[in-house]
């Protein structure tokens, strides 16, 4: 099996190490207990403190989309707000391009927020008294860029997200989906490498949501931003993620390449989580194939490494005795038998269940 996992050879752009966040009046006093492993309910019962995040280590690579997924209350928003220090950690370090965000003074932090990180919000958070154009130009206005220059830049990105001509409107005159496009244009206008997106599409209805996901994929194909995307929706996570981090009660349960997490869930929690998804639609040929193929080996056709199993099944017209050659960029990289395809569609039992099952 291939691992097209995040490229670990380059330095990560953002590196989070040993991050803890405890909410309450005296978090430092409670921290030793939490580090020793006291559970979230116990901490709440005994010290009236809420464990927001516990022992978070994540490497976020440049040009990739890192998705942080978890249910409501799992600490996703808390985590993403640490990256630009809208929330102060209890302990831990966050390095952005090698620079510790926690050691920045007010001016350095402003510089980081103005030029290196932008953010898209679940509830759009546009300025209601400003026009769409002014809203999109806001990051440059903060940096005191001249009006005609910032308007030109904002106009460009508004057009790019499909809002040409809406510049003079006010946000409340736009639908939710359009407002979030303004939110994205605003983040793009800031021209920062890193984009933080906190449940950016959660407030939109499913069709608009799919549109927006496609827009993001399209933009990402062009711009290669470092995106940190938060969602509680697995389908969305699988669609967008290069690297997937699954949070539960403030802890990381598993992180890695999404296809790998689907095939090898390490926790019953994740098994439950992925139980209902349409595996044929998200698993890809490269995940299931056997690597390597002899040049003269007989196959019944070619499929692309990035094809979903659904499309492979359609190619095979339902027959299960076929074998395909898996191609990536014109090169044969492996072979895929339909038997393996069908087997991969059976949800994996968790390692935990497997153990108790064989005992």
């Amino acid at each position: 099996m291939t691992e097209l996992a995040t490229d670990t050879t380059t330095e990560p752009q953002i590196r989070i190490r040993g991050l803890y966040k405890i909410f309450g009046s005296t978090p430092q006093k409670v921290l030793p207990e939490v580090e020793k492993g006291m559970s979230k309910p116990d901490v709440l019962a005994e010290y009236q403190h809420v464990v927001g995040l516990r022992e978070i280590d994540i490497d976020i690579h440049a040009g990739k989309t890192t998705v942080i997924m978890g249910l409501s209350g799992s600490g996703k928003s808390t985590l993403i707000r640490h990256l630009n220090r809208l929330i102060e950690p209890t302990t831990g370090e966050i390095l952005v391009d090698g620079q510790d965000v926690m050691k920045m003074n007010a001016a350095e932090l402003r510089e980081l927020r103005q030029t290196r990180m932008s953010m898209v919000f679940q509830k759009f958070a546009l300025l209601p008294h400003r026009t769409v154009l002014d809203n999109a130009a806001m990051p440059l206005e903060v940096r005191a860029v001249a009006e005609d220059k910032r308007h030109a830049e904002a106009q460009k990105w508004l057009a790019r997200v499909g809002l040409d001509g809406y510049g003079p409107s006010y946000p409340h005159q736009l639908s939710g989906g359009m407002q979030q496009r303004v939110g994205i244009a605003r983040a793009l206008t800031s021209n920062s490498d890193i984009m933080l997106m906190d449940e950016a599409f959660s407030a939109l209805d499913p069709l608009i949501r799919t549109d927006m996901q496609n827009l993001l994929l399209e933009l990402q194909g062009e711009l290669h931003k470092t995106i940190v995307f938060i969602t509680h929706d697995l389908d969305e996570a699988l669609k967008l993620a290069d690297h997937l981090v699954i949070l539960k009660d403030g802890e990381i349960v598993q992180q890695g390449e999404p296809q790998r997490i689907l095939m090898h869930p390490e926790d019953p929690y994740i098994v439950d989580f992925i139980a209902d998804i349409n595996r044929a639609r998200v698993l890809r040929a490269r995940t299931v194939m056997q690597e390597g193929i002899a040049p003269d080996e007989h196959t019944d056709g070619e499929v692309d490494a990035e094809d979903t199993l659904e499309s492979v099944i359609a190619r095979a017209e339902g027959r299960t005795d076929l074998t395909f050659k898996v191609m990536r960029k014109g090169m044969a990289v492996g072979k895929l038998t339909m038997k393996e395809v069908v087997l991969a569609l059976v949800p994996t039992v968790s390692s935990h269940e497997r153990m108790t099952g064989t005992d």
Partner: protein
Amino acid sequence: MAHYDGVFNALGLREWCDAGKEDGPMTMAQLLAQAQGADANETTGPLPFPSLDSLHEACGKIPQTREMTAGLERFFLDAKDSLKVVLDPLTQPLSWMLDGALWLFTSTPWWILIPLLIALTWWVSRSKPVTIFVALSFAFLGAIDHLEVAVATLSIIFVCTGLCVLIGVPIGIAMSKYDGLQKTGIPVLDLLQTLPTFVYLIPLIFLFSVTESKLYGIAIILYAVVPVIRLTDLGIRLVDKDVIEAADAFGMTSKQKLFKVEIPLALPNIMAGVNQTIMMSLAMVVIASLVSAPGLGVLVLRGIRNLEIGVGLIAGLGIVLLAVMLDRTSKAALARVDVSRSTR
């Protein structure tokens, strides 16, 4: 014989009490009785509450209530000179502003002033009905020869409201930023708002001469500034937290945040405060004319004093008309701000 003699005798304090006995000031009862033309030097009758006055009757060493009020009086008299040194120059510009505005409003010919005021109404309200109403009201006031007094009242309102905004908005902003300030500020605002309006005048009359216009200026401002402060504080605290977070996330400084986000978003609330402030300063105008404020209030006062019912009623009607004009105009302005800023 006083009612509580026995108590002091029993406690063995008689000697202490009687030492150095002298005539104190009147008791409260005597004061009230004097005002009603009756004699209160009776010690018979039912047992009185053991108040300072009734205890004093039995024991000369116990101070009387009147001594307390006299003490306050003395305090003000003593403090007067030093307070005046500080307050007089500080508040002098207020007199100049009030007199200047009054002069400007009353000496400008009506055929310039009234069109200007109507244009101002149009400019802030952008509402045809409101502007027409204001024009008709001015015509009516002019027709019944009340234009000059109405305009004098208006000049006071303009100056006082303007100053209330200048003073109130920064205080409101400070209160919204510092919880401690809000905690201490709110009781003071409550006090200012519930204090009977006449009571304001008492310390002011002590400090300034009744003929100075700043006297009523201060009284009006103290009374009318409250809603601007309150609603600025509230408005800024109610600004959508998500929008504030976005401002932070894009690296706004606190100054940028205040002027580009918080004040604009709090504006509908601030304007509602200004509207209330206008109404409250108008309510003070009659009371202010007790201390030489010119305008419609003087006529109302004359109506009361000389029982000239017609004069009083017509002047009262003029005040109501002014109130409605100001209210409609400021409400229209508020609605205009609200529409272009509607979030939810």
